[in-house]
């Protein structure tokens, strides 16, 4: 019986390692989900609010029982509506980030969502994710836990000391308790990033 359990455990570990090796990272899945949401808006399959009222994005790796099962689920939430609910969209992807399906969770129309003058909010989220995907390899190795094991991101509009409006994206990781903050100009160009 012990032998059987041991074999089953080894087989399970072997399978999960193989699937991890073939898979993209959580942050890449998050970025691809943003691209998918933009496409769905362009094709008029979902409301444009998902592009303009982006508030948060969470991403999780799913347990696959078959190779055709979804490997990632990303959920974008818009800013809260007047009744306290938020419109959400779930994107299911395979282990290469190809979208498999989407599901819209109805919520009230966002209120108090910041108005962006340059890029859309989802575009700013996507550009912030580009730093997560590439910044750890070049300038900031401490970003790597957010690259490999990103958990969630939240987008804000802030104003710096000189009065310039900036996009501020905060990232959480499943691996560390620190927060990565990425600042961009409203046209999506990079300003700075820090892990604290």
């Amino acid at each position, binding site marked *: 019986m012990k032998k059987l359990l041991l074999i089953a455990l080894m087989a399970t570990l072997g399978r999960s390692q193989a699937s991890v090796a073939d898979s993209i990272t959580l942050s890449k899945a998050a970025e691809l989900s943003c691209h998918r949401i*933009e*496409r769905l808006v362009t094709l008029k399959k979902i409301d444009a609010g998902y592009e303009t009222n982006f508030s948060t994005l969470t991403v999780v790796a799913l347990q696959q029982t078959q190779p055709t099962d979804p490997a990632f689920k990303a959920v974008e939430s818009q800013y809260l509506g007047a009744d306290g609910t938020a419109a959400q969209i779930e994107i299911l992807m395979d282990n290469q980030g190809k*979208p498999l399906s989407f599901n819209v969770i109805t919520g009230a129309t966002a209120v108090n969502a910041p108005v962006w003058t340059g890029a859309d909010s989802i575009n700013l989220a996507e550009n912030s994710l580009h730093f997560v995907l590439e910044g750890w390899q070049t300038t900031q190795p401490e970003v790597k836990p957010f690259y490999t094991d990103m958990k969630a991101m939240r987008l804000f509009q802030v104003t710096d000391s000189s009065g310039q409006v900036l996009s501020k994206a905060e990232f959480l990781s499943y691996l560390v308790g620190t927060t990565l903050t990425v600042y961009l100009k409203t046209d999506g160009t990079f300003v700075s990033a820090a892990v604290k």
Partner: protein
Amino acid sequence: MARILLVLPILIASLYLGGCNYRVDKQPQEVDPNFIYVPQAMIDSASYKQVSGFVFSKNCLSCHDSGKVPLDSYQKVVSNVDKIYSSVFIKRTMPKAPNPPLSYDQKMILLAWIKAGAPEVAKNGTVTPVPTPIPLEPTFKSLKANVFDMKCTQCHSLGGDAARIPLVTKEDFLNSPLIIIDPQNPDESGLLVVLDPKFGSKKFMPPDKSGYTPVTDEQLKAVRDWIHNGTHD
């Protein structure tokens, strides 16, 4: 002797001051195109077909197929030949990024043609073999030559601004997680969504900042047919 003693310091001083009398010329140096060696035989055999095949179609037409300085026919090129000479050899502002600069050989061909008086056919009647243009049709080979390499690849390849979305090989188009080609829903393929203005995509391609002109209706139709017909080689 006294005279020598009197003259010698003056001589040394004048040599010293004269020797240091140089200046750094901060004016931009014009490139003399004559530094490019062009054999007379090359000038005699220069033709529009040759310069078009080796230079304009490869490095210029992705932007200059329309607009203020179109270079897509002999008449249009000849009417702009002074601008071409100035921007390539004097100001050196062309080709603009993301197009690659002209190679030495391309500069030779262009300069030989200009020196020959920008003829449509070679003075000596020589017909120089030039790359045969690939007709526009809905195949990957044709679209790569006539559309993708002209409008996309420079940015969407290693070292380009959009290298994270490579568009070099057919597999790049077919296997992208961005669903650049959607076999189930051809009309929802990302390639069409960004190339066709009817979708109103905020990521319309090529972007204005690239300087590339949008794809023509004929090019767009060929891309659409390629996707609908099963993305043949």
